[in-house]
């Protein structure tokens, strides 16, 4: 039931003291006075508690089980970090308190900027962007502004590999660029020839993810970056896959000019059903003044300050100072792990992925050869052709077997793709169990395909009709509406 359907006229909870100043009538023009109250639910406190407790129980989550959603880095989110972020001393700060009052917060953010610089090999970071895509937009606007300032009017194209995350081309477009797709080669890496074909004066920059979304390390990354630089373009690094390489290699050293990170991935802040996350952007020295404001600086007197005065700043990309309580968690994560810990995180993330890859390759087709990094992609085209079972069906069956499904149908360049990222916090036993489940599904695909096509069965609802839902979208409840 929807919370609205539990509503009963006149029911309420009491949470506030009675008004202690004189009652005031609304002193506005009549037509501005609300006539019909918004139809919010009228329910008891217990009803609210039960309702949302039930809904939370209907969700799969990292705290429930293995969540090998490729590209999303669904790892353990340490409980202590949540507790720290929720402390009054962090969550009850007003953005317009004077700096003196929020020195602890600023100090934290300052160090986080420094840590991220160290981890990525960049020179300056802004913590403003609220998500990865937001960081990308920020980066693209920096590239645009840079070319504007340098009078490079011809630079209007952004190169994006076809394996890139959808946010990359979308962000480039939002920043007013024309997106040029670069093909991947048969090895899953950027097809250098195709890349070179598009390399001309109009290239404002390139967006690369490394390891890329196939989980493969772009070996020639520094060369690609160099070539882009040669035509006067800038190189942007999508850091969503940083979990594979911390302490091993740095985007800064690969030559990238701009980087965004997904703190909600690599630095383990909880995904919250899709957010809030945080997507800080780092740059090399020469772009420092382009960052969105404010950035946090340390003054000579040892105090921390919000610096708004960056010469070429693209401006503000969101209000205030970024997703602060997410930053708190990421900071807590980094200081918990330290250098050794972070390196181990990456190493084991890669170990786990390769272990799974190796095991699954016994019976599945892995899309690309060679050791992977934090994730890899299966190509289930054969399964479909042979037994008429789609990757979607296999994914749904996994739900029945107690696992979240991997990312499916992405990247688009692999047919019937299944993209698997185990992360470092999963045990070997759980990986083994997942392999077993996958093999069982393969057997079922051969011998009992109907089982897969009608999966899932043990979930709160069985397979849902998405097509219908989008054809005649019902996106809000209405009182008159009967259950469909």
């Amino acid at each position, binding site marked *: 039931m929807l919370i609205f359907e539990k509503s009963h006229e006149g029911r309420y909870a009491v949470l506030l003291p009675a008004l202690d100043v004189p009652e005031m009538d609304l002193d506005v023009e009549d037509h501005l006075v609300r006539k019909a109250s918004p139809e919010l639910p009228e329910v008891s406190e217990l009803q609210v508690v039960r309702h949302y407790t039930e809904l939370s129980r209907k969700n799969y989550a990292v705290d429930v089980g293995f969540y090998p959603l490729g590209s999303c880095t669904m790892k353990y989110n340490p409980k202590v970090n949540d507790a720290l972020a929720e402390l009054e001393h962090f969550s009850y700060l007003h953005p317009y308190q004077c700096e003196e009052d929020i020195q602890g917060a600023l100090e934290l953010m300052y160090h986080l900027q420094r840590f991220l610089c160290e981890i990525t090999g960049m020179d300056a970071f802004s913590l403003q962007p609220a998500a990865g895509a937001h960081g990308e937009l920020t980066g693209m606007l920096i590239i645009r502004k840079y070319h504007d300032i340098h009078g490079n009017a011809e630079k209007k194209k952004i190169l994006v590999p076809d394996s890139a995350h959808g946010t990359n081309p979308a962000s480039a477009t939002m920043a007013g660029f024309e997106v040029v797709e670069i093909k991947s080669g048969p090895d899953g890496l950027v097809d250098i020839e195709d890349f070179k074909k598009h390399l001309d004066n109009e290239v404002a920059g390139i967006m690369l993810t490394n390891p890329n979304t196939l989980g493969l390390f772009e070996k020639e990354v520094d060369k690609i970056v160099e070539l882009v630089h040669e035509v006067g373009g800038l190189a942007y690094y999508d850091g969503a896959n940083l979990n594979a390489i911390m302490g*091993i290699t740095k985007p800064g050293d690969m030559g990238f000019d701009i980087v965004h990170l997904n703190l909600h991935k690599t630095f383990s802040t909880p995904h919250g059903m899709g957010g809030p996350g945080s997507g800080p952007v780092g740059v090399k020295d020469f772009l420092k003044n382009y960052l969105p404001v404010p950035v946090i600086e340390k003054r000579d007197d040892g105090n921390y300050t919000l610096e708004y005065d960056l010469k070429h700043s693209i401006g503000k990309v969101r209000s205030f100072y970024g997703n602060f309580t997410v930053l708190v968690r990421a900071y807590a994560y980094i200081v918990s792990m330290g250098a050794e810990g972070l390196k181990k995180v990456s190493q084991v993330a890669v170990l786990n992925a390769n272990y799974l890859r190796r095991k699954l390759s016994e019976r599945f087709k892995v899309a690309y050869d060679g050791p992977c990094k934090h994730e890899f992609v299966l190509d289930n085209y054969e399964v479909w052709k042979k037994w008429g079972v789609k990757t979607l069906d296999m994914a749904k069956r996994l739900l029945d077997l107690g696992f979240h499904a991997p990312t499916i149908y992405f990247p688009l360049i692999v047919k019937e793709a299944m993209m698997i990222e185990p992360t470092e916090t999963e045990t070997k036993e759980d990986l083994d169990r997942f392999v077993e489940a996958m093999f069982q599904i393969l057997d079922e695909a051969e011998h009992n395909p109907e089982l897969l096509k009608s999966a899932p069965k043990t979930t709160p609802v069985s397979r849902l009709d998405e097509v219908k839902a989008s054809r005649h979208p019902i996106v809000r409840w209405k009182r008159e509406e009967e259950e469909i």
Partner: protein
Amino acid sequence: MAQYVPHTDDEIAKMLEEIGVKDIEELYQDVPDHLRCEKLDLPEGLDELSLKRHFFNLARKNHPLEEYMVFRGAGVYNHYVPEVVKQLSMRSGFLTAYTPYQAEVSQGTLQVMFEFQTMVCELTGMDVANSSMYDGASAVAEAVLMASRLTDRYRALAASSIHPEYLQVVQTYTSGVGINVEMVAYDKESGRVDIRTLREKIDTGEKPSCLVVGYPNFFGVIEDLMLVREVLPKDVMMVVVVNPLALALLEPPGSFGADIVVGDGQPLGIPPRLGGPSFGIFATRERYVRQMPGRIAGMTQDLEGKRGFVMVLQTREQHIRRHRATSNICSNHTQAALMATIYMSLMGKSGLREVARQCYAKAHYLAEKVDRVEGINRRFSGPFFNEFVASVDVNPAHLDEYLKAHKILGPLPLSRYYPELVDSVLFCTTELNTVDEITFLVGRLEAVRNADL
């Protein structure tokens, strides 16, 4: 150093053997030597207890709102967040889930999104809403982009009285695609958008895609949306930036023909958090839904005909439409939207109204008292919700310090954003301000002129 990796050395060895490599290094063979880095220069890792100790030290350097009587809002408000909101929204079934790509095991999330969308529609009077943007500022910016897409026009008007930081974000967002954002001044007397200026702007130059206007605006002043809509040509979109809480008392923008309603959800049960994360509200008319950015949950059925929820109209989104998507937004702020959903459920129809009513009454009570203080004058005559501007005859920065010394987080000096309001400050009250606090504040305001500053 914390230990979240479960592997023992033995296990690692076993796994390496299974993979057929001799060490983990070998798995990085594709990373060229010249790209390898040294050990990161970071502080030593901390166990949980040491981490807490470290944080308590940091925390001590902050002065949270509980140390103050708070009369500052300006986009982030000190409302009461009921315990139920805190505890339920932190349930791990919500907190540690991701975007509901697998609907059958994400019915909790999807139903929350659906309920949230409904509540936003109810508040705003609009047909459809998405299930959150990053914040109010980016929501406004996306609205301006959407208006341009829908009208294919690259000139946008924005009241200079919307939140200055939102304006800045709009400028940033629109710079890429080359939308020209022009300010429309406020009427110096009423604090509402200056209708004459607005008319002029419309009559001269390119036809604008939209006008962005606050409801209430940054000064707390309630715009007359009916009048604004009348002034705007039919095909110029009205984008309204709301304080969602005010809509419990005010006729919703939808009633006046708003095309897009946006705003920041922080007043709906989200702690101030130094400004974030909260979430952005985004609602529009049904006919524009396919141009709306962001995720949308919709109702459907499962194989047995049972009601269920899925993400709908995903072809608008970046993961499908890529560079032609309506927006690049991927991760949004669902968990904050959940907090608002729980908050609105808990407060309910009468409770939300009550909060708004108390905010309103307290602000007006304070305004009356403030009006009587010598040297302080309310600046605008327009009706207001829970914030109002006043000019003071002492230096606002000094006033601020003086009040702080009395444990008051006082009204925000406005000079930073409005040079012409260099002598003015923005007062705010919420249901959390008691009458005693108000009386104490007024007393301090009376005393400040004689105080040694």
